[in-house]
């Protein structure tokens, strides 16, 4: 059974977990960041961080240095450090003139990438001599708002999903703080900001989310034209499926060949990309049922017919765990190569933690390969 936490009545914009999953941070669709901790078996708000002027659109928690980076529609990003008593923010000068949309720490956590509506990705790193965070811009050839960013495990490459219907892979090699990267299947020349690859599934849907596989050789992205694509860069094969469900807003590789995706259908689903580059839909990962309604009296039936033109009971709740669109998926437990759990947040204000093991037992024949 997935662990359901009804946190707020409104939507949750973004969330992230700390390293040992004892705390999580989320934004309840306003300019605050709420940090939750478990008190007596229940999640409770421990701190409320108020520094952003407008809605907080993205956040990420670094596991090693325990610093939280948040970005908002106020065109700013802050790096928060906990000094034992409270969280202290330090402003990051992003130099963007539109809202920031997404932020993610790199695997080694020495830099983070911020996507924005200014058609720019800001790669920020810490400059020791001036004791502040500096940003470098990736501009060309992004032609519209950056919706999502994911880092390659080698700490140098990033995948960017934008609303110009394309997913791209860029180099974020910052020569000031790291050594020259080795060549990968994405290319050899990795000067900062060079576009290593560009993908267009021919539809016209915004690319809502991008995700690298644990090895970094595959890239998955989901579009608003109800499509899901997996690119296998080792053999240049692109597998696109224009599916028949509502568009996905988030996707995440769980293992090298399993992808969990979720979106406007309000439940997570599992897709599999096998060694023959076949992308197939495996199963819906939500098996919750509607609560059984009691017996209806004749009076209620006719009243229902009169009011709603239906003899059944008035029921506006969905049959799945989330009651509104799922906005983000975060890896919760397990290693990067093989995740054993993931968490989802939705417009319904719920944070749900799903366990792969219990999903495998409750859904017959389901295996996360």
């Amino acid at each position, binding site marked *: 059974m997935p662990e359901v936490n009804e946190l707020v009545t409104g939507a949750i914009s973004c969330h992230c977990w700390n390293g040992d999953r004892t705390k999580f941070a989320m934004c309840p669709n306003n300019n605050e960041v709420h940090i939750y901790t478990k008190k007596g078996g229940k999640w409770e708000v421990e701190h409320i961080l108020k520094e952003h002027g407008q809605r907080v659109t993205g956040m990420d928690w670094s596991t090693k240095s325990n610093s939280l980076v948040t970005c908002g529609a106020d065109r700013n990003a802050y790096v928060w450090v906990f000094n034992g008593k409270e969280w202290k923010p330090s402003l990051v000068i992003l130099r963007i003139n539109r809202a920031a949309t997404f932020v993610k720490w790199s695997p080694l956590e020495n830099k983070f990438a911020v996507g924005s509506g200014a058609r720019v990705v800001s790669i920020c790193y810490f400059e020791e001599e001036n004791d502040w965070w500096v940003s470098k811009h990736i501009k060309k050839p992004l032609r519209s708002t950056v919706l999502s960013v994911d880092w390659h495990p080698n700490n140098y490459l990033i995948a960017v999903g934008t609303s110009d219907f394309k997913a791209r892979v860029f180099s974020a090699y910052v020569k000031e703080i790291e050594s020259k990267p080795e060549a990968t299947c994405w290319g050899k020349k990795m000067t900062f900001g060079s576009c290593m690859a560009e993908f267009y599934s021919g539809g016209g*849907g915004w690319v809502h989310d991008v995700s690298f596989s644990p090895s970094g050789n595959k890239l998955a992205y989901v579009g608003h034209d*109800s499509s899901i694509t997996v690119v296998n860069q080792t053999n240049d094969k692109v597998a696109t499926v224009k599916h028949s*469900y509502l568009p996905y807003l988030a996707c995440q590789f769980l293992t090298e060949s399993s992808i969990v995706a979720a979106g406007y259908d309000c439940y997570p689903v599992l897709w599999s990309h096998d060694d023959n580059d076949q992308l197939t839909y495996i199963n819906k990962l939500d098996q919750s049922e509607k609560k059984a309604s009691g017996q209806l009296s004749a009076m209620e039936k006719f009243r229902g017919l009169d009011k709603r033109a239906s003899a059944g009971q008035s029921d506006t709740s969905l049959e799945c765990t989330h009651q509104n669109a799922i906005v983000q998926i975060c890896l919760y437990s397990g290693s990067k190569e093989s995740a054993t759990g993931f968490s989802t947040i939705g417009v319904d204000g719920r944070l749900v933690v799903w366990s792969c093991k219990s999903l495998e037992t409750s859904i017959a024949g389901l295996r996360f390969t």
Partner: protein
Amino acid sequence: MSKSTLSTEFRKVDVDELDEEAYRDEPESSGAQESAGDQVASRTEEVKRLTQNGNNTEALKVVLEDPPVSCKDKAVKEQNFNLVLDVLTRFRAADVEKAVGSLNCSQVDTLMKYVYRGFASPTENSCGILLVWHEKALAAGGLGCIVRTLTDRKSV
């Protein structure tokens, strides 16, 4: 007061066109445009032949194949749309399901685009059968099919 203050011409200026940062779709090659017109013309011939023989399903496949989406010429698109509508209205309500069953995924997507185009300009004869087509295409393509009709930059 000087006369120019009464002028409201500035309200008619399309500022979105003047915005340098506005997104513009990538231009299609001009070669495709000329051939699209010919394609529609030759298609009309073949469709006429097939429908006269009573082979409506084949005619449907021909007319849904390779629609002139990249063509800038509205007349060509209009011509193709009329052709498609003609084929769609020839079907009886009972035969629609089987016809949809014989189409592949991209043809179902194209069909849905034409159904919605047909909804946009309703006539006496077309509405009823278009609704049947919509129902069967939805059963085949799911909600994703309708989402693609709404989001695709290349319209029919």
